[in-house]
């Protein structure tokens, strides 16, 4: 156990938090299973067996829904490369990756800001505005007949820039005037949503014949990872997310600017004494954060969805706050936590269909995970771990 603890290092607490949340979740599955509970008086043995059965069925469906059916994988291997069988087998796991992709970007965005002790609640707004910027650029440049790969590149750059500006504004306001970033970013979320709505109602962007705020279908898209399997939505944006996570990690731990962000985040006064510009660190962190969120938005619209709407984000920016907390603001942790959240989102559908347990259970579990992560002492006392300083060690 000790060896395990050392090798996993900072991941131990979050992992135990996840485990505990699932255990508590199973208790709720059992006590809301009224058919079974009614047997408790007459046949306790059957009731207990039934309870275990329900939990196993629910979590089993969750796992299968998120990662795929072993039988389907076997069939795909047996079929000798039949595209349809392969697509059926890998569809659940690729859907998990699709769901994780925007969360990786938004999680990184929150984590970078958090590292500088800036609470960027505006990731949601930066995400949708980034998606909007990418959409506008994609439509404008493809209508001018530019080479499609160039259109894609310009759309991504334009998307990032839009979100970076949207992050820069609250950063600048905080650094120069002390305006609290929580207030300004929340307000800018509303502004971003209204800008997107207004833009989507313009004839230039709106889908012909639709009265809904939905853009035209984009002709230039992120390439799919399995072009031969059109049913698989996974695109190269996922790989880009992993690369960006590695880049963010490098930026934070191997560059002087990243060092400044972390130093200012831990102790603004000492950073000032060391000759750093605290305001500069805040502005940089918010700009990078906004850019990362916007890149996520761009990938969502250019990759997964293919057309812009005002509900392009299903709360990715807000979920990212919990996610970054779970990840301990580490880029690797963000990737892991995003995969977990993505799996819950994807697997929950099958669980609901198969066992009738509502999707809400998963939000419940997600909330418990966050609660346990936020209360490390609780987890330590449950698993009798020695208390120690939560200060982390990070490599230079």
């Amino acid at each position, binding site marked *: 156990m000790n060896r395990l603890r050392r090798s996993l290092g900072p991941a131990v607490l979050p992992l135990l938090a996840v485990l505990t949340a699932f255990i508590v979740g199973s208790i709720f599955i059992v006590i809301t299973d009224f058919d079974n509970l009614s047997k408790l008086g007459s046949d306790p043995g059957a009731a207990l067996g039934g309870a275990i059965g329900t939990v196993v069925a629910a979590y089993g469906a969750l796992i299968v829904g998120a990662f795929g059916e072993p039988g389907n994988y076997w069939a795909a291997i047996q079929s000798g490369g039949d595209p349809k069988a392969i697509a059926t087998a890998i569809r659940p796991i690729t859907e998990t990756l699709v769901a994780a992709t925007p969360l990786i970007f938004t999680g990184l965005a929150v984590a970078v800001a958090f590292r500088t002790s800036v609470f960027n609640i505006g990731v949601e707004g930066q995400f949708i505005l980034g998606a909007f910027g990418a959409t506008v650029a994609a439509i404008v440049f493809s209508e001018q007949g530019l080479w499609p790969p160039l259109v894609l590149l310009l759309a991504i750059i334009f998307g990032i820039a839009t979100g970076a500006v949207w992050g820069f504004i609250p950063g600048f306001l905080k650094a120069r005037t002390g305006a609290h970033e929580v207030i300004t970013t929340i307000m800018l979320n509303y502004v971003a949503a209204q800008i997107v709505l207004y833009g989507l109602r313009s004839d230039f962007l709106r889908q012909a014949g639709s009265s809904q705020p939905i853009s035209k279908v984009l002709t230039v898209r992120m390439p799919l990872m399995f072009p031969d399997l059109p049913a698989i939505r996974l695109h190269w944006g996922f790989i880009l997310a992993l690369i960006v996570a590695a880049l963010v990690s490098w930026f934070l731990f*191997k*560059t*002087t*600017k990243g*060092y400044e962000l*972390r*130093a200012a985040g*831990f*102790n603004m*006064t*000492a*950073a*000032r*004494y*060391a*000759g*750093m510009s605290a305001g500069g660190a805040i502005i940089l962190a918010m700009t990078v954060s906004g850019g990362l969120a916007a890149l996520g938005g761009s990938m969502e619209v250019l990759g997964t969805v293919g057309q812009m709407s005002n509900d392009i984000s299903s709360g990715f920016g807000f979920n990212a706050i919990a996610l970054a907390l779970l990840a301990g603001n580490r880029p690797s942790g963000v990737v892991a936590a995003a995969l977990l959240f993505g799996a819950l989102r994807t697997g929950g559908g099958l669980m609901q269909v198969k066992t009738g347990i509502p999707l809400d259970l998963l939000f419940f579990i997600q909330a418990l995970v966050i609660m346990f992560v936020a209360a490390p002492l609780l987890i330590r006392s449950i698993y009798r771990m*020695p*208390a120690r*300083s939560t*200060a*982390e*060690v*990070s*490599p*230079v």
Partner: protein
Amino acid sequence: MHLELKEITKRFPGVLANDRISISVDRGQVLGLLGENGAGKTTLMNILSGLYRPDSGQILIDDKMRTFDDPAEAISAGVGMIHQHFQLVPVFDVTEAVALGAETTTGPLRTFDRATARQRVAELSEQYNLHVNPDSRIEDLPVGVRQRVEILKALYRKSDILVLDEPSAVLTPFETEELFGIIRGLADGGTTIIFITHKLNEVLEVADHITVLRRGTVAGSADPKTTSREQLANLMVGRDVELSVAKKPSTPADVVLSLKDLFVRDDRGHMAVKGISLDVRAGETVAIAGVQGNGQTELVEAITGLRAADSGTILISGVDVSHATPRRVSDLGVAHIPEDRNRDGLISQMTVAENYILDAYHREPYSKNLVFHPEAVRQRAENGVQDFDIRTPSIDTVAGSLSGGNQQKVIVAREFSFPVKLVIAAQPTRGLDVGSIEYIHRRIVEQRDAGAAILMVSTELEEVLAVGDRVAVMFAGEIVGIVEGAEQTFENVGMLMGGHVG
């Protein structure tokens, strides 16, 4: 009353704070409890005052066993604590502050019996020569008087055993002398007193008996009449300690730091530094003495670029830095040991290596074109840890987990890791153990001998006298006197610190 603590043991997770500690004080005696930070003094006193319960051991008052479940029980048993940080309501007058929590009431509505309380406060003040006016407002009182109000509080609650925790930390030398007089008076009147300190002179002066704690155990006892400072320091640290700072006479050369008519405001906009002019030359140490809060902090912040000067000039090697950034000042070859190491000097969540480069990370060899050279960082941090004998498991250890002395060594090692022209050291040894103090003083003197100009700010008179080649005393934002050579005595500097000019 006779007080005896027998075989007290208290364990905290991972630390044995008190290991079978036994002390004993007779009625009317002053016990000096001497020890470094972390020796277990405060834990022991918290047990006596009912804040902690010992894991084992006994508290005997007049040979009767007592257990205290909370501070109220300790107070009713006659134990009064005077904490380092005063617990007084600023807007109350002395009578109210003293009576708070132990009010006598009168009349059908059971209202506060102010007249009786006031009379008792006045009587006690008279009886023990405390010179406290029962009607003064707390916030108008100087620190020394507030401390006497704390003593009054304990006496008002009929404490026969008085515990004073580092009482001189906030006092001027003269206020300390007054306090010692009061302590003697209380003891003569039959009060049993425990005086906690890490200052050798103080126990020698005021105690009837000395017990020295080291690492949670009793390291030894001594009689102040027969023991010496060296013997006490030896007991405290566990090895021989060089108490005086060995240094050659200074060889002042060119002016490195020159202040002219400097005015600086504090955070509230009040003028904290009022027209200071001072030159510090290469190869000399100018010590700034003074009670805390007389403008020293603002002066240091102005020199190091952290605070804009209101008017006047600051020249470092002829360069005007009155409006320079901290980075610019640092790049001129200025080492800054800040006054609050945890707040200003270290990032406690970062590693020793990361802290070692805190104000030089942007320079080669640590980084180039914004990218770190981790090997260079590690190499130089390892060297720093070795050169300065920093006790740390590794350079990847989080700085916050080191002891205060080792944290300060990280800062000093960092500041001296590049060639230095000027050293600004603010309270460089505050709260450190004797061993670390000795070490840091030696390093500062080394820099002086190597030709750096040193400006050291300290509230510790001993330190100022031992390290400074010249001593400038600050009072109310001004330099009220500069003494050097034969004039540099305890009495002269102490007098100036209290604002007694000429």
